[in-house]
């Protein structure tokens, strides 16, 4: 019994592509979960979703220029993500349009451009589906190193500016009266989200990115009311979901990105249900004690 369970666990890991895939999805899960705490608290879910979609034309152009070289596609994705992130920020500041409107414009325009570019060359439409839905099992050692380096950049930047980022997120007026560099901090956060999205592209893909950015952090937000604990729990949810999702994907032949996101969602639903039951229990207790 135990032996068969053990072999059930070990067997997939005898494949190099599974080892690399697991390492990559755990790393990406942690990065998304930590930056996700800021995305959830600042109400930037739509921004995160849009940003992942705006990468598409960059990836398409990269594909046209350099063929299927994965390494160079990452740089195209990163460049497009950073430009779009700062562009969205600039548009909503310089006009009286609300932020979600300018996000919508950039998001749809860029995504349409991406699809238009793809449609000009029919043959690579299939390959690009990897970027829409992720391709965990195609992670190379080079990809893994890229994820490791840029993931470290994101986490170290958050660590360095942790206090300032909290102040500027909680009370922008306090940040202003303390003369903190608010504009720099807000742009820093946008760039960090852009890096996260570019790094995560191969693992979860464009379409499901927002789930990795939001669902683990939101689940953790239901569990605790302290920010450091929220980030830790968020990372934990993401890591467990990545591992479980990948195994399910291996044994049931489900798309790996979808499997990971589904497990995250299950975590959220369970947490939400427990929360609600607790609240009802408290309420009925309060009633009966009256």
């Amino acid at each position, binding site marked *: 019994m135990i032996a068969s369970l053990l072999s059930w666990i070990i067997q997939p890991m005898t494949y190099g592509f599974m080892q690399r895939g697991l390492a990559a999805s755990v790393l990406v899960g942690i990065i998304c979960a930590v930056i996700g705490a800021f995305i959830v*608290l600042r109400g930037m879910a739509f921004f995160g979703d849009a940003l992942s979609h705006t990468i598409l034309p960059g990836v398409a152009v990269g594909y046209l220029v350099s063929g299927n070289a994965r390494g160079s596609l990452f740089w195209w994705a990163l460049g497009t993500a950073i430009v779009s992130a700062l562009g969205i920020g600039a548009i909503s500041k310089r006009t009286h349009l609300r932020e979600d409107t300018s996000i919508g414009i950039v998001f749809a325009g860029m995504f349409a451009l991406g699809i238009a570019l793809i449609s000009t060359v029919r043959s690579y439409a299939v390959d690009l589906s990897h970027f829409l839905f992720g391709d965990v099992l195609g992670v190379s050692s080079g990809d893994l190193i890229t994820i490791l380096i840029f993931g470290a950049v994101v986490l170290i930047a958050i*660590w*360095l*500016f*942790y*206090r*300032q980022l*909290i*102040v500027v*997120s*909680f*009370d922008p*007026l*306090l940040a*202003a*009266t*303390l*003369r*903190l*560099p608010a504009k720099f901090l807000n742009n820093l956060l946008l760039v960090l989200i852009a890096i996260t999205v570019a790094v995560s592209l191969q693992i979860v893909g464009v379409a499901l990115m927002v789930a990795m950015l939001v669902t683990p952090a939101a689940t953790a*937000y239901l569990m*605790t*009311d*302290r*920010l450091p*604990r*929220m980030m830790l729990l968020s990372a934990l949810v993401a890591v467990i979901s990545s591992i479980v999702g990948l195994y399910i994907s291996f044994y049931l032949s489900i798309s790996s990105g979808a499997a990971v996101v589904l497990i995250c969602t299950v975590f959220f639903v369970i947490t939400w249900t427990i929360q609600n039951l607790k609240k009802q229990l408290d309420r009925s207790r309060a009633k009966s004690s009256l």
Partner: protein
Amino acid sequence: MYPKIQHDVDQPILDLKQISVKLGDHPVLENITFHLHVGERVAVLGPNGAGKSTLFKVIAGVLPPTSGEVNVYGSTSSRHTCIAYIPQRTQVDWHFPVSVYDVVMMGRTAKMKPLVPPGKNHQIAVKHALETVEMQDLACRQISQLSGGQQQRMFIARALAQEAELMLMDEPLAGLDDPAQEELLLLMEKLEKERVTIMTATHDLDQAARHFNRILLLNRHLIRFGSSQKVLTAENLKIAYGGRLRMIEDGDNFMALDNSCCEGGEE
């Protein structure tokens, strides 16, 4: 990285010269000139849309005026870190995952080094600030679990931790019950002894007259600034509030009822 400004203590703590603010083509404040000395407690009165929040943002150096200048101890206010803006309670995300202690510690951010945990001096400053507002027992509470009065006092503690000498409070009394209002007004009097200068936006004429030593009557223009006897006359109030204030006169005495109350404030 952060500005360090010398205070010229011979200069008034706050000095506004011909401040005007236009948002688009719409004038919000026009030609405001006044100055304050250390330890004064000023109630800023005026109907909704009078420009009270805008005035505070200009004084805090957060919103640049269209023309005119604001000086704090003789130098431009936007370079000082000794001004605290205490937000309206409705504008705060109370479910943000931080404790009372965390929020008060935020006041120290500009003085802290990155990475290292807050040192002894910061911890002492926060502890002292919490004691001043009598909230040391609530330090570990998440901020949504506070009453309205406690939420307001927490922000005052944060301003104290910031070592603010000028506190701008935007409608701190709005939505509080009577005991909580009394408690807050007592705390403001206590702060006067610590040489903190306070400007409070309020709707309550009677409270303004009883608890503040100076009154600033505002409606885009500065209508009158001085002691309550001088400022709160039927004539001045009519200019400030127009038809929005009901005046009940009875010989020399009169009673004023503000119809424009409350919540939400103005931009």
